[in-house]
């Protein structure tokens, strides 16, 4: 009599949990009340009223789980798994959960039963039986948990090793897409090695392809967690951690830093945008095209200057140029070192890459929708949106009254940033064309701002990471004998460590700029640098 009932219970409980995770009340009640198995022989066997009550009992026990599943809106719940990694993790949880519920019911019932049954009424005439123990029982309730735990341990360990290999169980992915995810206080940076694409807070991946996320941190420990795709793995400075994810369907999946990482930890979020291979490729291509140049004299054009003067030290906005994209990692590390030298007064810190910003749906580490009003609010008072953010603590515009932006400048900046979206594919060659012929210090200024020089060098005399370049012409001519000022500066750009002067340490400047710039561009840049007062 008992066996079929137990069997049915074992069969029903996972089904209820499964239905619950799909958040479908009809399915839940249907499964739990045994409708699906109405014609099954097991149901016909269980005739006693007790057994007929059992599905209702299971429903009552699982009520919290049903509630759990149904309060979710879906985009940050591991139970709405959207990929094989999260799916396998969900399934093993449900397996353990069902065992735990059965153990819970048995043990709590034994406890409750003994309280009700053996509660003393009135004064007892004699003492109860003074049992001291029972060795057979002890052996029994030692072995039973051992067996249950073994049942949990075996699939657990098999899954640990499987998920170390790749996202789909038992398969080593043949062509995983490698992505570097870098945690910063308090935002996420994503780079696509080999693709020369860098972005922040919105990670684009193709569906149905294994993605190997290399987890890196430049400051403290963070944790990369997209509940719908996979459990978290920490991003630890100095360590190379790795996580496989794979999305079964296109969609946007919320992620959040899961390791406490300081003041704005709660607002360190991001999105994973899974899209078809074509859409993904289109996005990658777009990220490698420049935005349209603003109309001369327009607010956006003025905004570009505001950006170059006040923001470009920390924010790169031109990594559509492959050489800039490749240099971005070094630039971020340089910014981070500058910050660590003097955390209280540093005016520089690693910051989200803003290339083609307007392609994103959200900003400020994924916590607020990207639109003009929000962007204006953010630039005016970042703490109003994200308390504790580094920008308001470090950037000169918030800490040095002389550098503060006027409301007109803010409007111009917003206009510029909202324009940062790639030009059409056929418009690219023109935008990338060289000026040719004459040396132009105006073009040199653009190169200075857009090639990454301004990330480390000021045009005054203050040191950011590298020395300030104001008044360079006064000292460049006499630094190295037999070299003219022009040749010396040009040499220093192409080969930064060739001439180390004045007891300076080995240059930290990347030696990649020579390859990024044409001879004409170097001439333009040198002309600009030597024109600095």
């Amino acid at each position: 009599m008992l066996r079929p009932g137990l069997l049915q219970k074992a069969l029903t409980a996972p089904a209820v949990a499964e239905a619950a995770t799909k958040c479908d009340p009809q399915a839940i009640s249907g499964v739990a009340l045994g409708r699906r198995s109405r014609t099954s022989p097991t149901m016909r066997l269980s005739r006693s009223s007790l057994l007929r009550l059992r599905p209702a009992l299971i429903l009552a026990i699982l009520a919290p789980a049903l509630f759990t599943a149904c309060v979710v809106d879906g985009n940050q719940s591991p139970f709405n798994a959207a990929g094989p990694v999260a799916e396998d993790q969900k399934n093993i949880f449900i397996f353990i959960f069902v065992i735990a519920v059965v153990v819970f019911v048995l043990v709590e019932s034994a406890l409750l039963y003994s309280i009700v049954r053996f509660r003393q009424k009135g004064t007892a005439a004699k003492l109860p039986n003074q049992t001291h123990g029972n060795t057979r029982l002890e052996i029994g309730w030692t072995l039973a948990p051992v067996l249950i735990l073994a049942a949990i341990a075996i699939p657990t360990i098999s899954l640990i090793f499987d998920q170390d290999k790749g996202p789909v169980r038992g398969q080593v992915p043949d062509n995983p897409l490698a992505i570097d995810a870098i945690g910063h206080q308090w935002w996420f940076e994503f780079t696509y090695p080999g693709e020369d694409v860098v972005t922040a807070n919105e990670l684009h991946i193709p569906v149905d392809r294994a993605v190997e996320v290399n987890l890196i941190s430049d400051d403290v420990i963070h944790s990369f967690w997209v509940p719908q795709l996979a459990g978290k793995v920490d991003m630890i400075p100095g360590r190379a951690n790795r996580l496989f994810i794979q999305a079964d369907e296109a969609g946007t999946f919320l992620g959040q830093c899961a390791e406490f990482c300081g003041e704005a930890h709660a607002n360190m979020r991001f999105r994973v945008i899974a899209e078809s291979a074509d859409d993904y490729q289109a996005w990658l291509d777009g990220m490698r095209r420049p935005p349209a140049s603003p109309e001369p004299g327009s607010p956006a054009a003025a905004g570009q200057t505001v950006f170059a003067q006040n923001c470009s030290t920390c924010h790169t906005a031109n990594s559509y140029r492959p050489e800039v994209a490749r240099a971005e990692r070094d630039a971020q590390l340089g910014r981070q070192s500058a910050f660590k030298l003097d955390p209280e007064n540093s005016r520089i810190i690693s910051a989200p890459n803003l290339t083609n910003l307007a392609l994103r749906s959200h900003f400020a580490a994924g916590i607020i929708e990207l639109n003009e009003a929000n962007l204006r609010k953010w630039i005016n008072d970042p703490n109003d949106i994200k308390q504790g953010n580094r920008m308001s603590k470090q950037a000169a515009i918030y800490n040095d009254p002389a550098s503060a932006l006027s409301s007109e400048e803010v409007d111009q900046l917003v206009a510029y940033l909202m324009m940062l979206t790639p030009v059409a594919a056929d418009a690219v060659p023109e935008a990338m064309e060289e000026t040719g012929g004459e040396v132009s210090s105006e073009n040199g200024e653009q190169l200075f701002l857009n090639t990454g020089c301004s990330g480390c060098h000021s045009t005054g005399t203050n040191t950011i990471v590298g020395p300030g370049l104001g008044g360079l012409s006064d000292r460049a001519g006499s630094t190295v004998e037999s070299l003219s000022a022009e040749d010396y500066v040009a040499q220093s750009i192409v080969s930064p460590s060739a001439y180390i002067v004045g007891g300076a340490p080995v240059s930290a400047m990347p030696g990649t700029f020579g390859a990024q710039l044409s001879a004409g561009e170097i001439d333009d840049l040198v002309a600009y640098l030597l024109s600095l007062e």
Partner: protein
Amino acid sequence: MAQEAVISTFPNPFPRPKSDTGIWSWITTVDHKRIGTMYGISAFMFFLVGGTEALIMRLQLARADSDLVSPEVYNQLFTMHGTTMIFLVVMPLSAAFFNWLVPLMIGARDVAFPRLNAFSYWTFLAGGLLINLSFAFNSAPNAGWFGYANLTEGAYALGNNTTFWVIGLQVLGIASLAAAFNFLVTIINLRAPGMSFMKMPVFIWMALIVQILLVLAFPVITVALIELQFDRLYLTNFFNPDAGGEPVYWQHMFWLFGHPEVYILILPAMGIVSEVLPVFSRKPLFGYPFVVFAGAAIAFMGFFVWSHHMFTTGLGPAATSAFALSTMAIAVPTGIKIFNWIGTIWGGQIKLNSAMLFSIGFVALFIVGGLSGVSHASPPTDAQQQDTYYIVAHFHYVLFGGSLFGLFSGVYYWWPKFTGKFLSEKLGKIHFWLMFVGMNLTFFPMHWLGLDGMPRRIFTYGGDSGWERTNEWITVGAFIIALSILVFMINYVKTWRAGTVAGADPWDARTLEWSIPSPVPVYNFVKIPQVDALDDWWVKKYPETVLHQESHDTDSGQLAPAGAEDVLPMQARVSPEELLGEDHGIHLPDKSYYPLIAALGLAFFGGSLMSAWWLTLIAGLIMLYGVMGWIFEPVNDPEDHH
């Protein structure tokens, strides 16, 4: 004679305290009972502080996008809530019970080192005040109770917030270690004649195991804290990744301490429950040796599971699997305890008073915490649960539903012994039911918040997350818990004067402390008892149960039939004249100022490291004076001897 000469040359400006009443008699006391009371009161005060911190956090989280507190304040609140509840509430509450009960349950007149005991208490109090003093400087610790490097270092932890935390914990660690050695020596050396290890009450067993854990685990955190502080102050590179240090090394050190610490927090409560359940079931503890060895096994295995706090750090599949297995294995002895507790009440005559309700509540809630623990012993599911509210739910079932329910059970059970009066049963039951309902309303929904993806340690969450309604209920639950604590305080105030007087043995209990009057006389036992059996007092009251037991049970042969003489209660063997006589031959150690001076000097020394060097020098001299005075002071005043 030489010793007397030394004493007279050591400068002591204070006359040795003599009075047994008044504030100074408490400040200078070395009596384990008074020290226990002070531990209890101090810990309860810190409990109110830590509870208030929790309530502010709950108010903040009751609404999505709430701005009641800033993230900085919220981070301070959760850091101090955890630090307070662990180091300033549950540990010292356990210490209060150890102080009161270890000598009484093993038939001793005091602990082995009474002045060291006073030093432990004052060091704990001073350390607790020091770490909370940080609020006055707007520098409360803000990096979590686990203080993960390298967030606690260099550019990421400017200011004194983490320094307060490091130094506070070091001072508290000294207090814990001093107390641990004291209780170890006491339990091993001062047991009454005849009380072999396997005749010790389970509470004493758990106390012994906890002291061993403290002695082995605290040095690890001490070393780690020194390394962290050296990194912060002297730019060493233990945990600094920029110079080749390893932040994960901190996690290994912290959890190698931190996991045994969990058992330091729960085993005393398990000991209390193991005393209360038999008394109110009128049956011996089921499977005494199994409960004892399960406790020892939990403690031993507790040193091999630390990395389950670090499954997401990328330990690699082999290490992850090993720690998953060891973590699952620890569920076995835990299960053994639970089954034996149910076996204890099975077939008994259960009396559901406040003490019993709290003990049964402990078992019922601990089961939930244990089962959720098994679910994140499996690393693949832990990857989704780690650092979410699921974990918050889990450890509050273990530490609130477990430790605190057990400790409250002990409060209701031993209150008559401590004070001579009963706490009100009516208010006690209201306290229990409010706390039981509030506790479940607060912490059960956290399971599904965590499963739904809500991370811990976040001061805010978005309104579109779907978490707001659940958080609202959790906050209601937290205030119900607060209300239950208010009922307990009313109970305390009401019964302080008007409580029913309890006799020496109001519960018809089993262990030695119930053989002496309530409240306990200063010397505890007029005559050190001779112990013949486990639950000696019960056996002497009911010798027939021994014979009864022998015929039914073949498991434990340690009970010998009692002689008629031994059955007489302890007090009955001593005439009142003997009891009140001038010279009953009981010598108790005299009061002393020095433990207090040494303890305050130590905490001042720690705190002064954040200020000027000359303050540190002064503090060091105060500490040195306290220690030297202590060394040269005889236990008993030589002018006072008989």
